[in-house]
């Protein structure tokens, strides 16, 4: 019995230590942001407890940084990306899973292969393409390269393969068109997988830093990931307290979304592969 308790204690001890490792940057940021008196922020471990707690720094962030503009831009970009990815990958995945046409295997093989290649090398050519299309510094230009998600196609194909053949054939015999069949029969049967894809896409789009940083040059169009980063490493860097308050505000939306959907990430039916 004592050994059992000791082993449990060891387990929880180890887990708590590692939890501290993953969380300490944010705990410190929160404590610094809440400290009205910044004199102790470099004194460890005292800096993990707010010194003269107050919300002054947070109010200054709201006053001095266009935080809600960034949030709005992030929401807009993520929403367009999610809608676009679903609109493109659902019919594509369905056709690859349930329809027969020449080139089907080749298309899927090429898409799978690109999943393992570094998407970052596409930045330069895509910038050339986007500027030829006149889409630099536009929301369309910021989302377009991310829409044909190979991961999304893979996930949708896998999911639509699970629809029983009898169901599809029955609908076909009833004379339903393939388009109608997709949206009225196949999609309702695959809502969990579609939801998973939507959430993964949302998180990826929300966190995307590199491409928006390249494609936008107007500050008021920037998403959080770029706008807050630029401000905090530029004009705001003079006050650590201000920086940390802004960091806390910037991670809160992600943490809320993650807590609400953690099941999808921690018990994955499909791997959240990163391109």
């Amino acid at each position: 019995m004592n050994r059992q308790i000791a082993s449990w204690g060891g387990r929880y001890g180890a887990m708590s230590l590692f939890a501290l490792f993953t969380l300490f940057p944010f705990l410190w940021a929160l404590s610094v942001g809440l400290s009205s008196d910044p004199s102790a922020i470099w004194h460890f471990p005292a800096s993990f407890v707010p010194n003269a707690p107050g919300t002054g720094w947070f109010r200054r962030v709201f006053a001095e940084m266009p935080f809600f503009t960034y949030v709005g831009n992030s929401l807009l970009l993520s929403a367009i990306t999610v809608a676009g990815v679903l609109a493109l990958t659902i019919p594509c995945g369905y056709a690859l899973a349930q329809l027969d046409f020449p080139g089907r295997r080749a298309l899927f093989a090429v898409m799978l292969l690109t999943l393992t290649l570094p998407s970052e090398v596409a930045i330069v050519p895509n910038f050339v393409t986007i500027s030829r299309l006149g889409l630099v510094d536009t929301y369309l230009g910021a989302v377009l390269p991310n829409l044909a998600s190979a991961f999304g196609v893979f996930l949708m194909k896998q999911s639509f393969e699970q629809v029983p053949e009898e169901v599809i054939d029955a609908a076909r015999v009833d004379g339903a068109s393939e388009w109608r069949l997709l949206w009225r029969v196949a999609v309702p049967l695959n809502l969990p997988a579609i939801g998973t894809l939507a959430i993964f896409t949302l998180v990826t789009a929300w966190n995307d830093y590199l491409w928006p940083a390249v494609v936008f040059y107007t500050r008021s169009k920037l998403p959080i990931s770029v706008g807050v980063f630029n401000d905090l490493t530029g004009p705001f860097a003079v006050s650590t307290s201000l920086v940390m308050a802004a960091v806390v505000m910037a991670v809160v939306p992600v943490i809320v979304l993650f807590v609400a959907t953690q099941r999808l990430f921690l018990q994955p039916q499909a791997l959240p592969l990163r391109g």
Partner: protein
Amino acid sequence: MAKPGVRALTGWLFVAPCALVFVVFTLWPMLFNGWLAFQDYFIAERATAWNDFANFVTLYKSATFRLSVANSLLMLLTVPIIQAGALGLALLVHRKLPGITFFRATFYLPVVITLSIAAIVWRYVFHYDGMLNWALTAIGVFEPRQGPQWLEQSGPALVAVMLFAFWKNVGYYMVLYLVGLAAIPRELTEAAVLDGAGPRARFIHISLPMLAPVIVLCTLLSTIAALKTFQEVMVLTGGSGDTVTALYFVYNMAFSGFNFGAAGAAALLFTLVCLAVALVQLRVMGRHSPFRRAA
């Protein structure tokens, strides 16, 4: 599979929009890099001229390019550390103990946190007067004020990038190992317990062999991720302290040096390396992907 009354045209129409965007923004860039690699590209005039292998000679002569390749290879050192850490964490949180979801979620949290925002805090952790040097001083590694300049000094700066990459990614692989552990049949473990096998024997003789495909997959994913290290450097050190990696070199060549030809050449070489790793991956994994769902 016979498809009654479904024409091939329908299939093409369904994939067309996705395929079009895919070809333009995913496939074309790879081909374009291959073409750029052999060109002098004049941005202002939008003119190009074939220059044989001049871009590759530029790369060969560039000390920064050699440094960036060396750094990308050095990042491979993180692969075994991240994998060992992830497997250890998975074993730690595998059993359904009270509060386990909290710990799993906490360990995964850095994966979903915006990279650029997380990097801001870590810049302060690595500050010469920051938390890391304080902790190292406290345990007596350095005399006060003698710690390294983690983000500026050649050597320590790359270690800082590695530590940041570990923090950011270890939870991702932990979840993959958790999926693998959950797939081990309970009877196997129970039979081993009946046979009197201790935890260590069970790990070596059951968990490890059963996890082998997952370990291979994770190692390959992690290898590609390590070679691809770029954004971590961009947001953490901005390339200072000799932390330029291969992809960062490509980016800098294009957007700071405006040498799109050399950038294309470096991108082409890099894509080929990743392609080679990917082919190994496909060969090793083949049809035995541990995550293929039973149909």
